[in-house]
């Protein structure tokens, strides 16, 4: 019996001996069985919608930019403060968020708490708009930020807990497309929500704005419910499969960061070097297409958003592909090289930017599917939250710094040098990934194994354990 239990926790997929868990004669349907694919799919649905609320509400200000500026009498700089209040604290906070998940709350409670932060933050934000108090809105964004980024860390950790060694890359792809879906839906419906509310209230104004933001807060509530359900399912799975909730007796310390293995640091460098060449570029892209390629503003907006539009459907597909083939490092190299080519096309040619931007969209999705899951292979499970938190933190730091640097370069030296600068950033990521390849090769690591080799290794480990 004890043997059976051990095997269960190690070999989640084995289908024999299942009845032993709940006693003989009470078989579970597949959908309720934590070790069955069908049940994992149910969990995946909740996992994806866990982040939906925060992604939806994050871009509320952008979707209602004109309304926010008009109703509250702001200028663009003040408006941008709403994003700054979200971003800057997260340079530090989501590192601590990840640490809290590992050390204090545990993944389940941590997720619920961060979802609560997201909810409360959005409600404060909406209240601030309702009362026409801009400072209260900033407070709301700050509270929302505390929850939002750490929730992403929790989401990653959940994904690894449930899907490592199974469909992990696919899950990361799906989460990315969910994030994109959240912001796209937001961009497209918030405007009409606002005008409907304005009709109901009688006139557009800060009360209408507050009310529509309050409606947006429903999505956060929905995500909170997902967090609760997920916590329940995780607890249940733990009881049935007798797996411990990340408590291996080892205690995480903040100083663990300095002992992170070399491959993890290389992954961090790739992450920063790569993403700083994507997001700040998209932020500045619209005017670039107008100036360099003579696009109309509408065309420029369309070509600029193609990256996100492509990534929504492409990332699950690419994630599935990475799952089937393994060899994550090679996929990351491909993604980085493709991005480099796309940026060089934009910098040095007048070729239609649709080509370069589509390539950018594909490679961006591929990188997200292949890079983020690698973290799970190089750090022990009890440090996962800390590692993901740290990764998110330095990504935020990099983005904040590079966004400022990019603005300064553009103002003084123009778009060519800006593009060359982005190319240089991608080149740094390329150096890191090439180094990662060799380091992993020499250490005989798991990162670049094919899917078949990984499965075989897992089977061997399992039989040894028996």
């Amino acid at each position, binding site marked *: 019996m004890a043997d059976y239990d051990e095997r269960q926790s190690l070999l989640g997929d084995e289908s024999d001996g299942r009845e032993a868990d709940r006693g003989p004669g009470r078989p579970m349907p597949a959908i309720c069985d934590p070790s069955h694919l069908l049940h994992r799919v149910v969990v995946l649905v909740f996992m994806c919608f866990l982040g939906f609320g925060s992604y939806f509400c994050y871009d509320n200000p952008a979707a209602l930019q004109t309304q926010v500026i008009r109703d509250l009498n702001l200028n663009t700089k003040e408006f941008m403060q709403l994003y700054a209040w979200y971003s800057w604290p997260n340079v530090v906070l989501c590192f601590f968020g990840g640490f809290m998940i590992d050390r204090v709350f545990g993944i389940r409670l941590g997720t619920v708490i961060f979802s609560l932060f997201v909810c409360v933050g959005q409600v404060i934000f909406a209240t601030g708009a309702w009362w026409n108090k801009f400072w209260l809105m900033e407070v709301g964004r700050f509270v929302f930020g505390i929850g939002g980024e750490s929730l992403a860390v929790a989401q990653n950790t959940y994904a690894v807990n449930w899907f490592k060694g199974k469909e992990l890359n696919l899950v990361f792809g799906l989460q990315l497309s969910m994030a994109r879906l959240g912001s796209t839906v937001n961009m497209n419906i918030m405007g009409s929500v606002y005008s409907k509310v304005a009709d109901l209230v009688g006139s557009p104004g800060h009360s209408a704005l507050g009310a529509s933001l309050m409606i947006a807060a429903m999505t956060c509530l929905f995500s909170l419910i997902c967090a609760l359900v997920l916590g329940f399912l995780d607890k249940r799975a733990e009881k049935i499969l007798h797996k411990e909730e990340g408590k291996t007796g080892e205690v995480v310390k903040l100083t663990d960061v300095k002992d992170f293995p070399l491959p993890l640091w290389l992954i961090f*460098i790739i992450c920063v*070097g790569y993403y700083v060449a994507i997001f700040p570029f998209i932020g500045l892209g619209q*005017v670039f297409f107008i*100036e*360099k390629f003579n696009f109309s503003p509408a065309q420029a907006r369309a070509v600029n958003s193609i990256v996100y539009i492509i990534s929504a459907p492409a990332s699950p597909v690419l994630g599935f592909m990475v799952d089937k083939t393994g060899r994550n490092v090679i996929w990351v190299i491909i993604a980085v090289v493709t991005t480099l080519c796309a940026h060089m096309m934009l*910098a*040095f*040619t*007048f070729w239609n930017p649709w080509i370069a931007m589509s390539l950018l969209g594909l490679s961006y999705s591929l990188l997200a599917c292949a890079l983020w899951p690698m973290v799970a292979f190089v750090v022990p499970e009890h440090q996962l939250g800390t590692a993901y938190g740290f990764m998110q933190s330095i990504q935020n730091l990099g983005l904040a710094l590079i966004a400022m640097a990019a603005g300064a370069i*553009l*103002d*003084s*030296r*123009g*778009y*060519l*040098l800006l593009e*060359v*600068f982005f*190319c*240089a950033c991608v*080149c*740094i990521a*390329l*150096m*890191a990934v*090439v*180094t990662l*390849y*060799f380091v992993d*090769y*020499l250490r005989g690591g798991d990162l670049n194994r094919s899917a078949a080799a990984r499965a075989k290794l897992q089977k061997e480990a399992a039989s040894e354990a028996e």
Partner: protein
Amino acid sequence: MAAVETERIGRVCAAICLLSVCSLCTGHTRDRQVLIELNPGSPSPPPGDLLHARAVGDNDTLHFLFCSQGAPTLLLVHTNTSFSTVKVNWAQFNDRNHSGGLTVEPESSVLYSTAVVFNRLLEYDDINDTADPTSDLFPPYDLQDFRWSRLNLSGLTALLCGNTAASSNGSLCLQLSLFETEGRGQHWPRLLHTANSSQLRVWLDGVLPRATRSRFLLELQSVGGASPLNRVEVHRSIDDEFTPSIFKVSQWISALNDSSDVLGFVQWKPVAYRQADPALEDAAPCRHSEPRPQSGEAVAAVSGLIRAFYKEPEATGLNVSFGLAGEPFYNSTKFLSWTLLVGVGSPPVDSFSPLVIGMMAVGLGTPMILLLLGGICVCTRKRAVATAYEPIN
């Protein structure tokens, strides 16, 4: 790692810069020697100043003549000896009735001449913000009627300012810069220049617009003896390092029968700036109209220099309009500055700066080197492992 990288890039760039500076030093320090005279041989100050700059090369001379008698005019004369001179018959020159007041001697040495006349400043009320200058034109300012200041010389630059006789508010200024070597302007648009060209910066400062939604146009005329500048080419360029966000360069050239030999040019970037010390958002895009043949006699009547030098002037003209639909109006800053280059031969062509080349070389080179080193490392290790196993067999 990033810090190391930028430092390395910096070092390589410094090395490249040093190399290029050295090549300049060893090549030639000066392409031309420029000598400036004001009103050469004039017994008393004439009604409008005449600047003569003699740019002497190894075996040719460029004469730059800049004059404010009538509309401001810049005349370039290219001669094939380094001994050619300019003779001014001041009585005839100031009279402005007959040609021959200004001659270049020996006359047979003249290879080519071209002139640019700043003829009129036009203003229109852009009520619907369409930036379409055909509507609501105010009566134009004729620059020949402006009260022009004396020429203010400093080094190789000359400044000329003027305002309308009616009001003393604000001014239209022209700054001429001459060059002994190749280089680049200090201020945007930072045009690349050679010793075969001169740069003119034209700006409007504080001139009161006649409507709150006013936009301006500048009418330019090019005059030549045989072949005036006859077509405008717009080249696209991927390089906006020196003129941020501007990816085009326009050149008004004179070419004979579609041959590729360009005799003379006026070159500009399609951008004006709304501030004296501009930031990127102060850039106002410009457009130009197609050049049209003009009456040579009319231009000669407007400009003293054209009248004096050309016997049978041929002229073409075009308008440059500042600002596009949706852009801020002149009223927002009451300042507008535009720069153009006038020269003989082919217009200078921009190339990538050492900074761009250096960054790309380091950025692409380092991963390659890493790949190579890693490959070698792995190979040797494999071989070492293989040899270590041999004794067992």
